[in-house]
């Protein structure tokens, strides 16, 4: 139990430490080097000489997620990249924030009818600040970071109950609270799933000659006769096992 956790409502000690740590966290926001697409180029030019991000103490682009505070999702999140993004988000140490930069990270943007595009980064990770634009100008990104700084100023360690998603009836009274969605273990597929959704199981995976196990891929195209023969062998093997344990 940390010192702060013993208090359950804000008092003199917690508010003063809040002020100090919020001031410190606000002024040294180290973004993760996480450029996805065209917005990454605008993020880079925000860090460059013309409109300088380092003035706000946020110029140190930390390459590894361990040293980063804010993850700027700059670009289109494809479904293949969503798993990587959640893993990076989970690797970042605790006081972390997410800026969704650009229309693609907010809601899929111009690729609305793309089959492999995630419609917005907030479907997998919680997003704090949305910076609209395609791509947003560097000044817009700096304004986004300043809004994040204002949000961090109002942070409270104690006595701050997070807004919980709830069903509300017409007159505004809370009907019932929805289950809290925690953003851990998503990338390993261990997050709580809606019922009926079974995790993806791999079929036809094989080790490619000389390639490390990481390069596991599906077998690609198999001639029809070979596919039939493999199915028969599998059926025969299963039948043989049934006899042994029967």
């Amino acid at each position: 139990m940390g010192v702060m956790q013993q208090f359950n409502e804000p008092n003199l000690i917690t508010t003063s430490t809040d002020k100090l740590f919020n001031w410190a966290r606000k002024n040294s926001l180290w973004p993760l080097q996480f450029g996805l697409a065209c917005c990454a180029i605008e993020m880079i030019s925000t860090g460059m000489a013309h409109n300088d991000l380092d003035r706000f103490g946020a110029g140190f682009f930390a390459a590894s997620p361990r040293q980063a505070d804010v993850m700027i999702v700059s670009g289109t999140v494809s479904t293949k990249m969503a798993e990587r993004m959640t893993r990076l988000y989970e690797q970042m140490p605790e006081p972390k924030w997410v800026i969704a930069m650009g229309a693609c990270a907010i809601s899929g943007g111009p690729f609305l009818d793309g089959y492999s595009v995630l419609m917005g980064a907030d479907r997998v990770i919680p997003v704090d600040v949305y910076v609209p634009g395609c791509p947003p100008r560097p000044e817009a990104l700096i304004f986004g970071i300043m809004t994040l700084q204002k949000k961090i100023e109002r942070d409270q360690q104690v006595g701050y109950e997070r807004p919980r998603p709830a069903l509300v009836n017409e007159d505004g009274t809370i009907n019932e609270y929805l289950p809290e969605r925690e953003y851990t273990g998503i990338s390993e597929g261990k997050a709580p799933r809606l019922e009926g959704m079974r995790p993806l199981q791999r079929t036809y995976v094989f080790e490619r000659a000389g390639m490390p196990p990481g390069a596991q891929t599906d077998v690609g195209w198999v001639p029809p006769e070979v596919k039939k023969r493999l199915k028969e062998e599998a059926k025969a093997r299963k039948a043989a096992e049934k006899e042994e344990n029967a």
Partner: protein
Amino acid sequence: MQTFLNLLEVEPIRLLISFGAVLFLVLNLAAVLTMAERKVSGYIHLRYGPNRVGPRGLLQPAADVFKLFSKENVSPGRSDLWVFLGAPIAMFIPAALVWVVVPFAPDAVVADLNVAILFFVAITSIGALGVVMAGYGSRSAFSLLGALRGAAQMISYEVPLILSLLGVVMLTGSLSLVDVVQAQGDTIWTWYFLPQLPMFITFYIAGLAEVKRVPFDLPEGESEIVGGFMVEYSGMTWALIQAAEFASMAVISAVTVTLFVGGWQPPLPFLDLGPFNWVWFGIKTALIMFTFQWIRWSVPRLRMDQLMDLGWKVLVPVTLIWLFVTAGAMLVF
């Protein structure tokens, strides 16, 4: 009051208090150096450094340090916890311990050992251990590669570092740093960097490699292996490794100043400030540290084999040859 004052003179208490003061100086130096790094890089890159935090950005290091205090210390799942948490300590202690022998002013040195140079060389070689512990502890391919590179680089650059010291030791005849500074006299052309110019340059380059600064920052290759051995560290452990790095950078420049550029001696006799001579020591060390940062932002990074070739095939022969030259010169004069 008087008894309290001469109580301070008693050996163990004086040592503890002065070493505490030096440790305080080193920790603040690390914070200030991060700020200097970002300001210098800003001006080299035609942009301002941090100037929004506090008056003209001077509170930026305070903000960084407090943020790193309150960061969560994440350690990877299957990592060996003792080695993982021990590595930053094993890196910071040698970097801070070497300050014991650095002479700021004639009598302002924590412990005036008569084997100061031997002590300096012995302690700096422990730093390589910390790098290997960090690399092994965090169990990731990137950190393993970074650690192997770091160990190879630091060990193979100890040799030119030590050889280039021998020239100065031969000239002064004693291993104590205070004698070295006094033997250099207080005029600029009697300092040792003129007769020992190749040694000075080799010591400077080997110092850069020992501290893992840019032309040699392979263990922490920013764009190749993402953070080298520091990839898994966050919060205070990462801050301690950064403090160790900046402290060893400062100590290398301080030792370069004492050995080759005349310690606290003023460049010309009439510029002597008497008791305030440590100001000269501060100015020279700051200049050397500025050149460290200047090089960092203007030179690309070497590859591992080129780094080894430079160390063994260029620096070591140069120092060996120059040792004979100094020995011959001492016989003649």
